[in-house]
């Protein structure tokens, strides 16, 4: 591991972008990073709300149409190298909001999956995924950031 990768590894900043699901995944993500039980901060993975200092973007929720432009803006303002993790069934495939519909066909009020808006590196399925799964997803996104030139 070269010097750049070592220094990057020591300060991984994670940003949560919440795009309008049901709040469940959002709390589990904050739990995974912050809460004393699944404390990832001890491995120097830090939660930030500023896209300009973030390395990994965690997206949760169906992408409501009001959130499409803000999400693109957030993605653009994260500096390279960056990784995107889509957490939860809503972000991966739209969950019940997209597919399970009665009379009217597919729900076009939402833009899920997240892939249609920004490129996604890692997907974490589950409704809602456990904090351990979220941590595993973030770890899988790390090699892309560390090995970048």
């Amino acid at each position: 591991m070269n010097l750049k990768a070592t220094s990057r590894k020591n300060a991984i900043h994670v940003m949560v972008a919440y795009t309008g699901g049901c709040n469940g995944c959002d709390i589990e993500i904050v739990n995974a990073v912050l809460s004393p039980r699944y404390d990832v901060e001890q491995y120097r993975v830090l939660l930030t709300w500023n896209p300009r200092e973030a390395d990994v973007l965690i997206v949760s929720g169906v992408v409501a149409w009001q959130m499409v432009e803000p999400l693109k803006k957030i993605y653009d303002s994260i500096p390279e190298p960056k990784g995107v993790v889509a957490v939860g069934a809503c972000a991966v495939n739209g969950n019940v909001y997209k597919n399970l519909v009665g009379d009217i066909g597919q729900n076009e009020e939402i833009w899920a999956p997240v892939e249609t808006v920004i490129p996604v590196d890692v997907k974490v399925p589950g409704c809602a995924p456990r904090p351990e799964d979220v941590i595993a997803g973030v770890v899988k996104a790390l090699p892309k950031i560390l090995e970048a030139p």
Partner: protein
Amino acid sequence: MTSGEKRVEIEKELSFGPVHPALIEPYRIRLFVNDEIVEDCELNINMAYRGIEKLFDGLPVERALLIAERVCGICSHVHAWNSVRVIEGGLKIDVPPRANYIRVITQEMQRITSHLILFGHAFEVVGHETFAMRSFLLRESFMDLISYVGGNRVMPSVPIIGGIRPRADLTESLKRVILERIDEFEEKYKGYVARIIEDPLVMSRLTGIGFLTKEDAIKFHATGPTGRASGWDYDVRTKMDEYKPFDFNVITDESCDTKARIVVRALEIFESLKIIRQAVKNLPEGPVVNRSWRAEEMDFTTALLEAYRGELMHSYGLDSQGRIRNYKIRTPTPTNLAAMEHACIGDHVTEAILTIASCDPCLTCCTRAEIVDSGKSFVLSDLEIIRKYGWRK
């Protein structure tokens, strides 16, 4: 909007959101500020519109439960329970007493986790990280218990029409585990609450801001702990048949400020523990689900339930094939919004976010489509929106 008859000159508008470091959920706050004093406040909640009420239309009623539970991730059990209470009330389906007890147990467990999220959020806004972390740690023991009962930490899916899922039935060993864990929790939690109340720094930050008098609380329809913190003893639990066997108090506070809203929730957790203990100890024997029902035509029926933030309404009708028509959900937060906006007025601008956080907004499940036209705003039903604009491409 809420400042009354007199028009006030505004120096500056502060606008946050929809994605802002100060806010986790996507919503927009506009604070109208005069010399750092908030003169008016406007909350725009329309950032996460999913069209969820329209999704229900035409679904078989059993499948609707799947979606109803996913309206909100904090109060998932409430939505699942209330959606089945509508059809149980409308078609007179009997629910075995054992199933009712287990529903109540899950409800009160999730109420505790929801209130502890509020403490975590409120103390993070205050800037006291230690209290926030301790509340998240305390919350984990109840997340574990919910996952033992239902199989998932967030979406336990306990109620089905006519009872509960057989998987969620409490075994003898699980009953013992629940009783042990809540004893352990109560001891730790008592220490936590005493530590908060004795802390002069935190208390001086909370006391005396965000006033909402009883008259205003009733005028702006504040429900749940937000209303009870203004001295209005309204609790749907006292009127529900499911809560008849249990003995509990309705906590109210007359001091009407941000501290009262935190303290009411802190004391409600003890009442919830009392209900869980009674329910687990007196759990009746018998079946957990009644399968002898058929979905048939049902009139528009309404069910009310005390969710963790206030009164929750679900209502729908069934057509002759047992499919859902005209699903309506009113979550507690939209009724609390006007009270939140009113409580911010007159305080320093730094207290506004804390006041809103102390009212415990859950803004994902309350989004309505709305048209603002020349100062007057009115809410359209989903059908009217589709008729007017069609499905958005």
